[in-house]
């Protein structure tokens, strides 16, 4: 983007009264109804907003009789919120939809994010496979957060780790998407991972 200015260094236009904060983006992913919007709403300083984003679906082989990769662009609702860290820094949380049986290319939403949190419902583990695959392949720091619905988790964390087959470097935590402190702590796990990665 040669014609546009970087968010930090360039001086604001003459007369542009307000200088925007530097936006840092995190992505909250997972299957339908797993608690993404709840988690965003628990910690966001604004009520979660919804907009429509385009995602590219690559139809999985099982659906694809011709065996040719078939890509379609679908418009999906995306919920997001934000947290003002200070006047110069703002954290954005984008909840990205996911679905089983499809590979997704979320680049439109995820590009530039510092990390991801994959929310898991242990009753429907397979709903999160697409998100786990995505973050692994894009090498984006991420953690798996098992949402404890009603304070209960159906499977132990070791079972979840085994079922998802994530590497040892991927934290798997239990959290409650309704609790602000719990969401905060899960996001901190991801951010610490991202920070550790910058330091080699």
């Amino acid at each position, binding site marked *: 983007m040669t014609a*546009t200015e970087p968010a930090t260094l360039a001086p604001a236009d003459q007369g542009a009264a307000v200088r925007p904060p530097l*936006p840092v983006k995190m992505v909250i992913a997972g299957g339908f109804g797993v608690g993404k919007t709840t988690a965003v709403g628990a910690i966001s300083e604004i009520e979660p907003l919804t*907009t429509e984003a385009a995602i590219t679906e690559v139809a999985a082989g099982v659906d694809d009789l011709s065996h040719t990769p078939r890509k379609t662009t679908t418009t999906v609702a995306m919920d997001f919120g934000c947290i003002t860290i200070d006047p110069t820094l703002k*954290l954005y949380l984008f909840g990205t939809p996911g679905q089983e049986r499809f590979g997704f290319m979320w680049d439109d939403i995820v590009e*530039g994010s510092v990390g991801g949190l994959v929310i898991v419902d242990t009753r429907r583990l397979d709903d999160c496979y697409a998100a786990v695959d995505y973050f692994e392949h894009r090498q984006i720091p991420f953690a798996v957060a098992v949402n404890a619905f009603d304070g209960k988790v159906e499977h132990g964390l070791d079972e979840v780790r085994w079922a998802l087959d994530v590497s040892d470097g991927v934290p798997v935590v239990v959290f409650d998407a309704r609790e*602000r*402190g719990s969401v905060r702590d899960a996001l901190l796990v991801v951010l610490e991972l991202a*920070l550790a990665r910058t330091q080699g």
Partner: protein
Amino acid sequence: MADASPPPDPDPVGPAPAVRPFLVTAGRVAPTASGRPMPVETQVVATAEGLAVLDGLSFEQHDIVAACRLPQSVAELAARLRLHLNVVRVLAEDLRAAGHLTVYVPDVDVTHDASVLRRVIDGLRAIPNSRGVLRDSD
């Protein structure tokens, strides 16, 4: 906020717009030839020039510049104005080219810098467990 949406809405996206989304962009779907689309968190602010000519702008362009008196992300603009994300991207680029908006595309090297991540971590750590302590936005 000046959000006039009715309280609990069963349809999170709201009513379908009366005009096909890309009519307002004259069919353009990509934000110029400059390459990648603006990230959804890209910050957009109205310029003094943009605010000065506000009354002369057409519907969506008027609404975008007016909403950008305070910095907004592209995603916030789309949500608050109920426009498709890519429509906002196209129009924001137009308005930037016309001098009505300043567009701050985040520099990934900066947002991923350790010092920035530490500030986000420290800021998040300061958030209390309970909702009641910090002032809610509404």
